[in-house]
């Protein structure tokens, strides 16, 4: 029996419509994801001034060679990025676990506290950074004032490497801990109470229950949070940029002591106008992000589920 046109149309409909329905995603991804990526890769092979696209010239892997083998400032920036990644990701996840655990208990005004958790995250990053930069001020900062009660308090937070990293990490941790805590809290509530009851019968106490039951059961969420925090911290820009405003903001301190890789990219692209070089940094940073995210995935995956 021959197919009528209506039948055939129905067949096409079944076959093709799904593609039609998902196509907006691919179109948007193509325009905002894939194309910029490929274009960046293309530009990274050029010697190109931001203001002078016509004068661009193809130099192959010259930018990469320069970056990887002849540019100590790039490695300085990568080092700072990794240092800040460690200083932010680990405390972030640990604090979030603790806070989620506290909020998971019965306490007065629970919803209020839970809502409060997300507040730092929805605050403008610029506003947060400006306020933190004031708190960590050398002469009139609140942190130094508090430290002065204990006989300290003359820390020039921006001048040192460790001190500036601490201050920036404090901003990031403050901003993101609540976000991760809410994710952990949601999954904690899904853990059946029978598990804890059984553990109690077996004689397991609070901390034991937390490390032996709660944390292992949260493994997928911890992996998710760690990877998210990692990718976020690898492209840390606003905090170090605004921690040292003024004309020299892009260098991340007088001796680049807190210049992250993303900030170095910004400096090369938008201060020195070296568009090709900064594109190469962008691609290397993307690869590094994948590596570090993979690494943190492997580490968190080792959380035992015994």
């Amino acid at each position: 029996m021959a197919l009528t046109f209506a039948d055939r149309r129905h067949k096409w409909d079944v076959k093709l419509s799904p593609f039609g329905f998902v196509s907006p995603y691919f179109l948007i991804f193509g325009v905002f994801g894939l194309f910029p990526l490929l274009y960046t890769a293309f530009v990274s092979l050029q010697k190109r001034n931001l203001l002078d696209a016509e004068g661009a010239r193809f130099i192959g892997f010259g930018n990469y060679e320069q970056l990887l083998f002849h540019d100590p400032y790039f490695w300085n920036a990568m080092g700072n990025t990794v240092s800040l990644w460690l200083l932010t990701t680990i405390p972030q996840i640990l604090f979030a676990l603790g806070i989620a655990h506290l909020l998971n208990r019965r306490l007065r005004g629970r919803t209020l506290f839970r809502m409060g958790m997300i507040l730092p995250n929805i605050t403008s990053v610029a506003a947060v950074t400006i306020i933190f930069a004031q708190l960590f001020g050398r002469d009139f900062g609140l942190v130094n004032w508090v430290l002065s009660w204990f006989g300290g308090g003359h820390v020039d937070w921006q001048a040192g490497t460790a001190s500036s990293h601490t201050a920036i990490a404090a901003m990031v941790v403050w901003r993101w801990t609540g976000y991760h805590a809410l994710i952990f809290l949601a999954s904690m509530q899904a853990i059946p109470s029978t598990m804890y009851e059984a553990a109690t019968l077996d004689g397991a106490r609070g901390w034991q229950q937390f490390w032996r039951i709660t944390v292992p059961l949260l493994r997928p969420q911890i992996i998710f949070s760690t990877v998210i925090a990692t990718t976020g911290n690898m492209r840390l820009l606003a905090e170090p940029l605004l921690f040292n405003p003024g004309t020299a903001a892009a260098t991340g301190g007088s001796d680049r002591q807190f210049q992250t890789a993303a900030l170095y990219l910004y400096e090369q692209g938008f201060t020195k106008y070296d568009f090709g070089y900064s594109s190469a940094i962008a691609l290397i940073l993307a690869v590094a992000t994948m590596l570090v995210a993979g690494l943190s995935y492997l580490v968190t995956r080792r959380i035992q589920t015994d």
Partner: protein
Amino acid sequence: MRPKTTNRRIRLIAGAVCAGLAAVTALSACGGGDAGGGGKIKLSLGLFGNFGYTDLIKEYQAAHPDIEITERTASYSDHHKNLAAHLATGGGAADIEAIDTGYVAQFKATPDKFVDLTTVGGDKLKDRWLGWKWSASLAKGGQQIGYGTDVGGLAICYRRDLLQNAGLPADREAVSALWPTWQAFFDTGKRFQAKAPTGVKWMDGGPTVLNAIFGQAPTGYYDQSDKLVVDSNPALRAGWDQVVDAVKANLSAGLLYSTPTWNTGFTQGQFATVTCPAWMMTKIKDQAPDTSGKWDVATVPGGGGNWGGSYLTIPKQGKHTKEAAELAAWLTAPEQQAKVFTSQGLLPSTPSLYDDPKITGYTNPFFNNAPVGKLFTDAAKKLNPQYQGPKAGDVQTEFGNAMQRVEQGKQDGAAAWQQLVGDVAKLQS
């Protein structure tokens, strides 16, 4: 004009994100285009710091009912970075964009991005400006990319009360006589520091003083052929060593200009003197209004010199370049510059005003009625223009960082200089 570090950080981030997006995706969806709604021609002004144009804009709109003008202000370095990004992507720039002396050489290297003002009547206006001001924004091919606004000039602003407490004279004639040279300035500083209360230093920071000393040298960072001469220009090294010595003598509050901590320094009275181009007076007044009457203005050691001063340019990508050029010409006309001088203290770049009694007779009540009109026009007449190379602004930033390394105790003067020379060399390519 130099930055008034505004609280518009949010705009900074938006700008940075926009610039990044636009650069990466070659889209230009960010920033202020004008859709010409309501039948009015909309013109935008991209500024940094305080140009004192708000009243002038009202005046212009009243005279031109078909034109609507908006100002947007960012901090000094953000403004110039955003402008570069907007020019690169071909969209998003304001109809009129201000450019500082430190950056004008860099932008005039790509004159095709700007309207050549000589083609829209600028050639007839040429005589308005100081000769060097006109040529500083003139591209190699003869295109004029900008109309001059103010010039920096140089003076020293000082706190009368702090000097007096330290047993130094407070009267401006006597104070000026204290420092015919920079060496005398630092020696006076040592006398001051011996009696100063804790937390109060002689000067705000090394970088500001460096900029003033460098501004007086016949040659700055570049020679006339745009070659960087930082390591071979003896004037720079001599000035550097002098300021390093002053920092070692504990005269500096260690603050980097146009940062929030520097701004706080004004309100907290952390330093007794600051190098004072005309635009700095506006900055002090905006930043520490409570210190009115405590400040005064003395002459700068070594006479003359210039730091800062700006231009108004018309990016070609604008929709109403003709109207924008007319507005820019009006804003920089001598009459308007005179108004900006008396309201904001920005020193005109139009020499016809330098003998105008309205200008020379002007005293600033905030600065203890200092005769700033006379003081700055005298300075402007003595001013030896210095050639500004392509990346003068960035070299200045590197000098600021290097001096900070000394002030923060991270390096000694020689090591900081050595690193500086390497950093500056990278700017040449």
